[in-house]
């Protein structure tokens, strides 16, 4: 079953004299449990594609289907609610809420979803344990390293029990050790809980461990390959 389906997806910026295609006729199918890297040079359209799939940006033409929902038909408020319940986001620069602790950041999404307290507490503890931060639950983001903050971001993204997680350059600001650590966690979640990950990257360390690699150039898919990873 496809979690994400895009059909002839395009995004055109036609503010200048010549229209610029950030995304150009992308047809894509991502199934549940895939661990997919979207790669390509800067300006190839990786982030724009992720933004459209995540409902943060509108396509100029074509459509995006998440599960059975065509998201271009949703109103702005419906889209926010859809994102809350179906998509987990991990951003390049962590983007945690600075005034909340690791525990509160992870709990945040579930509070927006009105999840009962007992369930929240249980899930927060289990998620932070999974990302190896059970002993840093009460620390605020400024008291955590970059790698630790990104692990909290992964825990937060998982907290809403999304259909998939979109990660935009999740390792761009991390050192090698933190990158390896984060990838271990993401792969473990993918393997053990069948969590679908789609991330943009041009980090070779990430590309080496992805199971499917989609390469973009000038907004077009130029290759879509599967690789076997131990």
């Amino acid at each position, binding site marked *: 079953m496809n979690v994400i389906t895009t059909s002839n997806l395009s995004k055109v910026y036609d503010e200048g004299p010549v229209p610029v295609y950030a995304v150009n006729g992308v047809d894509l199918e991502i199934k549940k449990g895939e661990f997919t890297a979207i790669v390509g040079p800067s300006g190839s359209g990786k982030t724009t594609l992720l933004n459209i799939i995540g409902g943060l940006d509108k396509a100029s033409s074509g459509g995006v289907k998440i599960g059975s929902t065509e998201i271009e038909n949703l109103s702005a408020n419906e889209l926010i609610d859809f994102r809350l319940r179906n998509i987990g986001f991990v*951003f390049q620069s962590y983007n945690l809420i600075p005034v909340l602790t690791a525990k509160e950041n992870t709990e945040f999404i579930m509070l927006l979803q009105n999840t009962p307290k007992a369930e929240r507490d249980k899930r927060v503890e289990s998620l932070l344990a999974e990302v190896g931060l059970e002993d840093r639950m009460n620390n605020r983001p400024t008291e955590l390293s970059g790698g630790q903050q990104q692990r909290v971001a992964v825990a937060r993204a998982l907290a809403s029990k999304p259909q998939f997680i979109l990660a935009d350059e999740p390792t761009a600001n991390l050192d090698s050790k933190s990158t390896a650590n984060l990838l271990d966690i993401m792969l473990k979640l993918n393997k053990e809980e069948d969590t679908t990950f789609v991330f943009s990257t041009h980090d070779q360390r990430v590309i080496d461990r992805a199971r499917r690699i989609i390469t973009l150039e000038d907004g077009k898919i130029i290759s879509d390959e599967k690789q076997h990873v131990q």
Partner: protein
Amino acid sequence: MKLLIKIAWRNIWRNKVRSFVVITAIALGLWAGVFVTAFVQGMMTAKIQSIIEVEVAHLQYHQKEFRDDLKVNLTIPSSAEKLNELEQDERVTAAAGRLVSMAMIGSANKSGSIRVVGINPSKEALVSSLSTQLVDGAYFEGIKRNPVLISERLAEKYKIKVRSKLVLTLQDRDGEITAGAFRVVGLYKTDNNMYDNFNVFVREQDMRKLIKVEEDYHEIAAMLTHQDLAETVASDFQKKYENLEILPWLDLAAGMRIMNEVIGLYLYIIVGIVLLALLFSIVNTMLMAVLERVKELGMLMSIGMNKTRIFGMIMIETIFMCMLGAPLGLLISWGMITYFGEHGINLSGASYEDVGFASTIFPYLENQSYIEVTGMVLIMALLAAIYPALKALRLNPATAIRKI
């Protein structure tokens, strides 16, 4: 809601200096609004009190046209009956008759025009505070023949003092010029220099001899149980005595009714200006708070925080700052009003007395006004937060998330 409250509360302490600026602006705005209101109310209360207690009492009877040129023969018919009738009315606490005439005052050095008021000293003491305004001499005691009470200012102007002689020249009811020698029994001083420069007081029986008015009065003044009754009581008696002019204090003191109405409007304008300054201060600071957090707001929208919650979070932040600033402003205002309400603010250099206001202002504010001004400040603060909150809602999450 609990979540929004938690985030909003912590957000206001992220930038302590900025929050301190907003909290201080709210406190100062509230203080300025409340204190200006209290100052003007104190000034007006003193003015009204002075007008009622010193100048006109709560209401007065006159013959129609008497007040235009103070003609000696325009006395109130059956004055004694009318006085008695007033004293019987349960809304009236005291009433007294007066003779009033224009006159020339002459001392050894100088002469000039004044108004002579003939009074029954003991009855007058019940309708005016003249007897308590003395700065020298006594209230019609110690001089048996033709005592006169003049103001301290008049005494300085005519270079006379207690027990000095002066001559009052008046017109009697036949139109003949008549004069009498009087001796200064005491000096009074009120908050109104114009009043002090213009009024001298003699005993009723001494004046009657001079102007040949054997009975009746030119003016009957009455004090009521409460100043708010003045219009009703005056209107009731006016209906009964259509040939007389019976007016409440608001119409007796020149310009008082207009001043009383306009001062409230001016007060709202002044408080409005203060609040407008406050509004721009809060808009500016909250806008900074929003623009500083564009990326974070973009992230919140991306992960599913809806617009109502974003709007609510910004508004709650402003409410929190109001809840800190408003009590602070109220506390400072209350402290200053209590202190200056007791000790007064001395503005004797500002010539307030020349225009009929007390030179020492005792700020005063009714509880109702505290609530009104606080309400206005809170509403203003919330209005000020709407624009920055709407600005936050207009952010595009995809663009906002990439802001550095």
